[in-house]
């Protein structure tokens, strides 16, 4: 059910918020043992919130834009009084005394928290397998991963366990799971959405964004969460446009860039490539102009990212030392032992790997060769995009080189896992907005994702093109009903 459809039902009394919440909770109960999309379900609070919405409706009060919409929140966004774990043993029992700005805005808009979703520990991963609370499965095929790190949020939307959700995207953590789970996921421009209350992984790359079943719902959520926040110095003081208002505008004459380097990838699955190129042709049939674009530094993104992100992470995660909150190793005899054991027992191996990489990259004698060099390459990647957006309005690529891979496929191959983010990382490095939406299925019936990138703050354009595709492409009509996915 789309948000607009729901609001109409609520308005006319066809379905109450309480009934919807109960339906969602029942759905979670029936499928989440298999999926493990949720770290925590906030049933009691959801019912209370729903009752409040129903009461307000009966009292004739005007309803806010997300009234009664059941929402799932990635468990690295702080929710006041509700455990926020980052799917880590380190924060297993951490209860934030404050609310993140984005969730605060959702609740103010009438949204209902239905639960906190699973992720790769501290958002470090591309499969939601590194969670300390077990892996999440892909609703389309339980033997496959949902992608990551926002795998729980993507799977919950795909399996009908919520109406929409929030994730965070540092190198593709919204778009790649959206692609794997066949839903829409948007990473906004860096600074478009406040990071206050998002547990930091890599501060210069992290951005919160929505998952939804369709582009219109994605636009609704973005409208609510976007905008300046005085608590985040990196949030942009720019007015938020009405993203829904321009969804139906024609894309005639719009120039869409096809990045050559993306389609020349060695690891790019042929089915994915064909599907994405057909999507491009479909957009052309709607009046858009396709332009070949070259971004020579595009493929340097992954190396650059795996220096910058771990460097920032090594500092961001230094605070977890067992002194103030979170896990503390038992029976340690000295301060240095307490710090060391707390961190080696509290963090999983992927988190430790990245902290070590980052610590190394920032160390005296290496910082110039790694961290500073990576920053220079980052500038060059940005320039490639500046150049591209002088020629086109939107760039088109696959979201991921493959469809959802089998659980455990990259267990002993971290580099193979890192390559899953090859196509999504450049948008983070350049701070650009990017969206992933379903554009077809592989021979096993797994969804394929199409990535669109736009210039800084041009989310409206992304949503417009995505909506035009979604509402006209034949291939999407073959999509199964969410309820049929996980019976």
């Amino acid at each position, binding site marked *: 059910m789309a948000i607009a459809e729901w609001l109409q039902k609520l308005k006319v009394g066809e379905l109450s918020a309480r009934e919807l919440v109960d339906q969602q909770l029942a759905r979670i109960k029936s499928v989440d043992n298999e999926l493990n999309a949720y770290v925590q379900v906030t049933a009691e609070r959801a019912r209370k919130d729903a009752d409040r919405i129903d009461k307000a409706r009966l009292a004739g009060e005007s309803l806010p834009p997300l009234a009664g919409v059941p929402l799932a929140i990635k468990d690295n966004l702080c929710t006041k009084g509700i455990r926020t774990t980052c799917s880590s043993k380190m924060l297993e029992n951490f209860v*934030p005394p404050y609310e993140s700005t984005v969730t605060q805005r959702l609740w103010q808009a009438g949204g209902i928290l239905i639960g906190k979703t699973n992720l790769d520990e501290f958002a470090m991963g591309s499969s939601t397998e590194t969670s300390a609370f077990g892996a999440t499965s892909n609703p389309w095929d339980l033997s496959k991963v949902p992608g990551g790190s926002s795998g729980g949020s993507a799977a919950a939307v795909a399996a009908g366990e919520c109406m929409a959700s929030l994730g965070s995207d540092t190198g593709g953590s919204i778009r790649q799971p959206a692609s794997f789970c066949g839903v829409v996921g948007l990473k906004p421009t860096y600074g478009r959405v406040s*990071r206050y209350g998002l*547990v*930091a992984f890599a501060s210069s790359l992290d951005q919160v964004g929505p998952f939804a079943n369709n582009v219109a719902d994605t636009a609704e959520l973005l409208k609510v969460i976007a905008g300046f926040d005085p608590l985040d110095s990196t949030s942009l003081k720019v007015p938020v446009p009405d993203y829904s208002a321009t969804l139906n505008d024609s894309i005639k004459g719009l120039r869409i860039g096809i990045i050559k380097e993306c389609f020349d990838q060695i690891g790019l699955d042929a089915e994915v490539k064909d599907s994405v190129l057909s999507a491009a042709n479909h957009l052309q049939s709607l009046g858009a102009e396709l332009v070949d674009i070259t971004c020579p530094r595009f493929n340097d993104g992954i190396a650059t990212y795996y220096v910058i992100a771990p460097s*920032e992470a090594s500092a961001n995660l230094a*605070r977890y030392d067992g002194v103030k909150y979170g896990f503390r190793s038992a029976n340690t005899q000295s*301060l240095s032992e307490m710090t060391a054991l707390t961190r080696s027992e509290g963090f999983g191996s992927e988190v430790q790997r990245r902290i070590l990489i980052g610590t190394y990259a920032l*160390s*005296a004698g290496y910082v110039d060769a790694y961290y500073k060099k990576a920053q220079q390459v980052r500038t060059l990647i940005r320039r490639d995009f500046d150049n591209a957006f002088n020629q086109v309005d939107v760039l088109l690529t696959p979201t991921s080189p493959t469809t959802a891979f089998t659980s455990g496929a990259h267990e002993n191959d971290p580099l193979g896992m890192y390559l899953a983010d090859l196509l999504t990382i450049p948008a983070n490095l350049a701070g650009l907005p990017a969206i992933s939406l379903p554009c077809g299925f592989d021979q096993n019936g797994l969804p394929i994702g199409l990535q669109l990138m736009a210039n800084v703050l041009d989310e409206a354009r992304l949503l417009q093109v995505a909506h035009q595709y979604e509402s006209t492409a034949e291939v999407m009509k073959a999509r199964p009903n969410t309820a049929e996915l996980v019976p």
Partner: protein
Amino acid sequence: MSDSGVAWEAVIGLETHVQLGTESKIFSAASTAFGDEPNTHIDPVVCGLPGTLPVLNRKVLEYAVKAAMALNLNIAEHSKFDRKQYFYPDLPKNYQISQFDEPIAEDGWIEVEIAEKGKETYLKKIGIERLHMEEDAGKLVHAGSDRLSGATHSLVDYNRAGVALAEIVSKPDLRTGREASEYASEIRRIMRYLDVSDGNMQEGSLRCDVNISVRRGSEAPFGTKVEIKNMNSFSAIQKACEYEINRQIKAYESGESVIQETRLWDEGKQLTKSMRSKEGSSDYRYFPDPDLGPIEVNSDLREKWRSELPELPATKRHRYANDLGLSIYDARVLTDELPMAEYFEATIKLGADAKSSANWITGDIAAYVNANRLNFDQLLLSPKYLAEMLEMIQSGKISGKIAKEILSDLITKGGSPKRIVEERGLGMISDQKVLTSIVKDLIVQYPNEVDSYKAGKTKLLGFFIGQLMKKTGGKADPKLANQIITKCLLD
């Protein structure tokens, strides 16, 4: 100089941490109040809770820039914050937000007046390398014992964490302990003039670390540098430097080496002792803080802040000595604290003589202020009434002796000196008729003495003046009395 005849020279540089006196912390709205219950001035940002972000307090930037301007530093148009990483429980995030390679201000100087008993006072220009902004750390409290060594556990208080600091790094231009302490005290004075810090060393609002080495003469290469911490007064800075200079010279002369280390000043034992060796420098893995944008101070803002700077102590000292003709000593004393200088200036603005104003203010009035732990801006004796009193002395309406007598009332009770003098009839009797009539009575009363005087015993003039003073309660104008008595005795 030492026994061996080598002209040893000490090379000293100071790192001064000044707590900027903003109401709230550098990156959050938590209070900066000192001395309250542990962990009462904290919030999620101060504690570095997951997901929190720093936002720069604009007042901190203003204070830092004003401090930098007063130290003649160049203000950077663009600067940034960096993360300085090390693990310690008093540092909530295990990194300190500081400024590394692009500080807010660089390359300045101050002029320091080096005054020492028994030595000639001289001026010295001390270079300042840089000033940067950073956040303070919390404090560890070791429990279970009086001493760290026996402590069973440690507690941490984050009230101080996140208080804004300006770190001021001098160039290695200082040569003696006295120079070091005068430099530090001039920094404090400037900060207090600007009202950007209370400079309270006991409460830790101003903390100095000393870097010190000695070398064989001013041309020789630098010796091994030792850092000294834990001095909480200016005299401790001087003594610690002097102790350390001697220790290092002795070490070199007895063929030992000086190792690069951090030493603590032990105020009780009056010596420095080794705290930890600094083999190789620590790797703080600095990198730009991605949570904070660039710091931009445009020229309009710079000019606005510059225009708000007060006249600084060195300028005042020069003006008092050169334009007002005060002694270097008086100029120094008057300008030590701004309220005293302002009191002095308000007094002379009302027409009072600079020299006598200085005498009264630095003398009896300062003594009272100090004895009662007051501040000059709290005095009941306003500059207006002080000026009035000085005018009365000047014009002969009261004597200096009477002025001293009424001063304590003026200070403790306030009010106009004119009125007090009137009410108590303390004004000098300068009326010729009144005095002449009293003198005539005296001549009738003491005929023998009059005769002796006339016979040449002129010393008796003193006797008559004494009698006159007795009759007038000491208020007769002495000059006039002299004239009148001489005249009457000869009639």
